Every structure is written in C-alpha cells, then in structure tokens.
C-alpha cells in the first residue's frame, strides 16, 4: 500500500515532465518568433539606410553590400541635424518646466497647510482626462493671438501644460509615502516651506523625478499632433514632423529616408535601455496606484 501510493505521484511527475518539456519548447519557439517579428522590421530599417535605391528595389531581404554611411551623413546634413536640435531643445526645456511645476504642486498639495486641497487635486488631476485633440483648434487661435504660432515656445508651453497633471500625480503619490519626521523636525528648527522643499523633500524625491523625466522625454521626443500643427515653419520642426517633411521632399530617395528614420529612433531606444529601471517604476506607479 505504501509502495503504490509513493510510486503513483512519481510516475505522474515523469509524465508531467515530458509534457512540460514539450510545452516549454513551444513556449520558447513562440517567444522567439514574436521577438523576430518585433525586431526584424527595425533591423531592416537600419540596414536599408546602408543600401542604395537599386538595392532597395531588389530583394528586400538581402543584406546591404557594405557599411556605406553616405545616406546617414546625407540625411544628417539635409535637415535631420536641425530637427534634432529643435527636438532636444523642446524636450529639455519642457522637461525641466514640467518637473519643476509638478514638484511644486505636489509639495503644495501634500506638505503645506494650504486650504482647499481636495478642490485643487481634482482640478489638476482632472486635466488627465482632457485630450489634446479636443483642444487643438482653440489652441491654434490662442497661439496666433499670443504670437507664438510657429515657434517652439508653443510646443514647450503645451507639452508642459499637458504633462503637469500626470507628473504631479506621480510625484504626489511618492510624497504621500515619504515619512513626515524629517520635515517636521526641520519646521521645529524654524525652516521655511521653501527651505524644506529645496533642501529636504526634493532630494528625497529623486527616484520618482528621474522616472518623470524619462517618461517626459519619451513623450516629448515622439509627440506628433501638436508638433505638426504648431510648427509648419521648417526652423521650428521637431524630429517626427521633420521626418514627414523629408519624406515629402526626398520621398524618392528611399535610402536616405530610412537613414533619417534610424537616426531619429536610435536615441530614444538607447535612453530606454539605459534607464529601464526608472522607466518601469514610473509606469508601474502611474497605472498601479
């Protein structure tokens, strides 16, 4: 009796192992195939930047004849450089403004004796529900009236205004979890609200602020609707809009367009891999809380 009861689970385990191995093989095969479907088009894009037009019209699966950087250099000199500088400027400026304004707001909402807090929280976070598409026509009228239409100032202001609700939401959640001991001690020692913010709270919030910056970079570098509508002037175009201009201008020179696309995708992929940890924290705090 004892013998059989011991043997039974063992044979069951062995059977499970066989099925387990087969299931595992299928699982890995699936993950690898999906990985190829995801990555191969991107590699194809980068490789096409090394080809010339004759090769591009040949076998699409063929590898380029060699590492010919000509198209990349050409794309860089024919506009991509300017688009990159506008994109960097807009991303950095709106990123700094967004993080500062959000951190101030989150501080005001969590650490001060400000009245009407729930009302302000509702007002700021309510901004999360409003979509840029709906606001775009009135914003054009407004920017024209302010004389900011067709300048990157319009983009810096709008990226900040539309991202402050989300960043505030993230930073506020983080500040609510911070212990109050330190700032209470500082208040006892006579520190002002300003001193407490800059010297104590802001440094403590560094992890979530890094996450906010990463998420903002990803947003501002890739944003298209506002960028397209508020920068028809070639000198204030960001990369996504600039790419469509290149496409319209040099649309027949496919290789150069592929090179330009690769140049514009590369920085953000590098940022993602370098800052994955912060990025994932931002995402999980943003949707999980």
């Amino acid at each position, binding site marked *: 009796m004892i013998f059989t009861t011991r043997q039974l689970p063992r044979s069951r385990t062995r059977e499970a192992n066989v099925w387990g191995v087969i299931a595992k093989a299928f699982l890995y095969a699936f*993950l690898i195939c*999906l*990985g190829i*479907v*995801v990555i191969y*088009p*991107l590699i*194809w894009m980068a490789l096409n930047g090394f080809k010339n037009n004759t090769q591009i019209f040949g076998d*699409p699966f063929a590898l380029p004849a060699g590492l010919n950087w000509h198209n990349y250099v050409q794309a860089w000199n024919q506009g991509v450089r300017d688009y990159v500088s506008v994109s960097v400027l807009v991303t950095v400026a709106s990123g700094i403004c967004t993080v500062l*304004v959000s951190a*101030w*707001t989150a*501080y*005001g909402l969590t650490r*001060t*004796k*400000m*009245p*009407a807090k*729930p009302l302000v929280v509702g007002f*700021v976070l309510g*901004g999360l*529900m*409003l*979509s840029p*598409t*709906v*606001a*775009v*026509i*009135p*914003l054009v009228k407004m920017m024209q009236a302010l004389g900011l239409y067709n300048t990157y100032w319009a983009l810096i202001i709008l990226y900040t*205004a*539309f991202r*402050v*609700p989300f960043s*505030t939401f993230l930073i506020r959640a983080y500040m609510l979890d911070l212990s109050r001991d330190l700032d209470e001690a500082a208040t006892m020692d006579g520190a002002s*609200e300003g001193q407490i*913010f800059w010297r104590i709270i802001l440094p403590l919030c560094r992890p979530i602020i890094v996450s906010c910056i990463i998420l903002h970079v*990803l947003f501002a570098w*890739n944003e*298209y609707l506002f960028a*397209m*509508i508020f920068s028809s002037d070639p000198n204030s175009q960001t*990369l996504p809009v600039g*790419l469509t201009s290149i*496409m319209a201008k040099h649309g027949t020179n*496919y290789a150069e*367009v592929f090179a330009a696309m690769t140049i*514009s*995708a590369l920085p*953000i*992929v590098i940022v*993602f*891999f370098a800052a*994955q940890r912060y990025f994932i924290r931002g*995402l*999980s705090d943003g*949707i*999980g809380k």
Partner: protein
Amino acid sequence: MAVTGIKSGTGFAGAAKRRGAGGRPRPRLRNLFSFRWIAAAVILIGWFVYYPIVDNFIVSTTDQDIYTGEVTNVGLTNYDRLLQDPVVWTSLWNNALYAVISIVFQVFGAFLLAAMIEGLASEKWRRFWRAIYFVPSAISITVTGLLFYFIYQPEIGLLDAALRGVGLDVLIRPWLGDAQTAIYSIIAMSQWQGFGYSTLLFAIAIQKIPRELYDASIIDGAGPWRRLWNITFPLTREMTGLMIIVTITGAFQVFNEVMVMTAGGPNNSSQVLGTWLYQQGFIEDNFGYGAAIATVIFVVTMLTGIAQLIYTRRRRVQF
C-alpha cells in the same frame, strides 16, 4: 469649498489688521501664502487645458469666413451637418474597430504573453523578453508608421515579398492603397507597436501577486492553465479593467499613425475622428465644423474617463 474660501478671506483681512497693530500674522495668512506652490500649475492647466475645451464648444457653434475672418454664429448647424456626414460615421466605425482589435491584442493578448514571460524560471530572460517586446513602444509612431508604410509597399516592402516567398501570391496587394485593407493595415501596425507596452504593465501587475499562492496551488496539483485562470487572471483583474478603458480612450484619439500612413485615404476609407477633424479644420479651413468633430471625441473620452474614475475608486484587490 466655497465656504472655505470665504473663511480664509476673512482670516486674511483679520490678519492684516492685527499685523498693523504689530502682532505676528495669524497662521491663516501663511496658509494662503502656500498657494504659491500650486499657482504655476493651476494657471498653466486652466489656461491651456481647460479653457480650450470650453472655447471648443463656442467655436463649434460658429462659422468663420476664411477671407474676411468674420465670425458668424450659426447655432447647431455644424452638429446637424455632423449627423449627415457619411465620413463621420466611417470615422466612428474605424475608431471603434481600433478599440476592439486593440482590446483583443493589447489587453488579452498582452495578458497571456505577460503570464508566459513571468512563468519563465530565469529573471535574466524575463527581463530580456520584456525589454525586447517593448522596443517599438519607445520609438515614435511617426517612425513606426513610416516604416510600415514601406513594409506594406508592393515594390520594396517586406510583406508582399514574404507572401510571394511562401507562395501566397493571391494575398499580394497594395495594403494601404486598397480601401478594403487600409484601416486594418494601420491597426495591425499599431498592435505591433503597442503590445509590448501593455505586456510590461501586466508583467508588473503579475509580479505583485504573492508567490505563496502559486506554491500552494502547485501542492494542490493545479496545472499551469488552472493557475492562470484561478490565480493570475482574477488577481490582475483591476489592471485588465483599467487597460480596457485606457485602450478605448486611446483608440478614439488616434491620429498620428493614420496621418503618416494614409492621411485618411484612399477615398476616406481609413479616416478616423482625429484625421477628419484635421482635414476639416486645417486643410479646408473650417474651424467651426472641426470643433464640432472635436466635441464628439470629447464626449467619448469624457465617458471613458468617468468610467475609469468610478473603476479606480472601487475597492482594490488586497493581498
């Protein structure tokens, strides 16, 4: 809230008087001074986020002459026109299609994929797959849209070449130039681009489930499917619900990929509300009608936003 405002107002006056008499300001005044922390955000959001939404309703009841700039009030005429515009109905249908297909792949598909990845034994490989699938989401939709514009092209594209390679010549077509397939091709690109993002979010949700629950169910003899259905799925239900709502909201705001790949064509077959708004408001210079289309997007996103609010207020899964 109004009551608080009035109270602090009197406090302010009182404090000012007392200060005149040489005393320290009452705490109330200092509390009001704390408003400086939120002032920048309130001004920015009020001016550039809330006010345009209100203004949009006003614009939608007007007609602007492009040449003279003269604005006339036309009441609800633009909304009348909206109901009779066949392209608006095509757009609504395409947006809905976007939502449904995205829910299948980017919510349920991503959930299954995340469960598969999180079931792997080595943390190194879990991290690897999560990162690989996420890469397209980091890249701008403009780049991925242009990339697929080329992939779908008959002469140089990968898709038709691959179909020819496996002998499925009957399927070969100009995917974006065919009114039957244009919108589906765009949606397919969007799935390719976005599934890694939601997979990452589901992976984070799955990681929060305590390991003991799985250990206990393995001891009870439950197989992987049972564990998936009895533990993983119910305990990530909150995330699933949230993702469905977020996906619907996103589907009704689609603009970038359609603009880059087809600009709504051929023959308006791939128009969505966002691109039709752009076409009417900015190409045909008809701000009033464009604003009316924007109102439709506003109504849909407002409904999903309220649904999200109600959903997240409900009691959460507690461990």
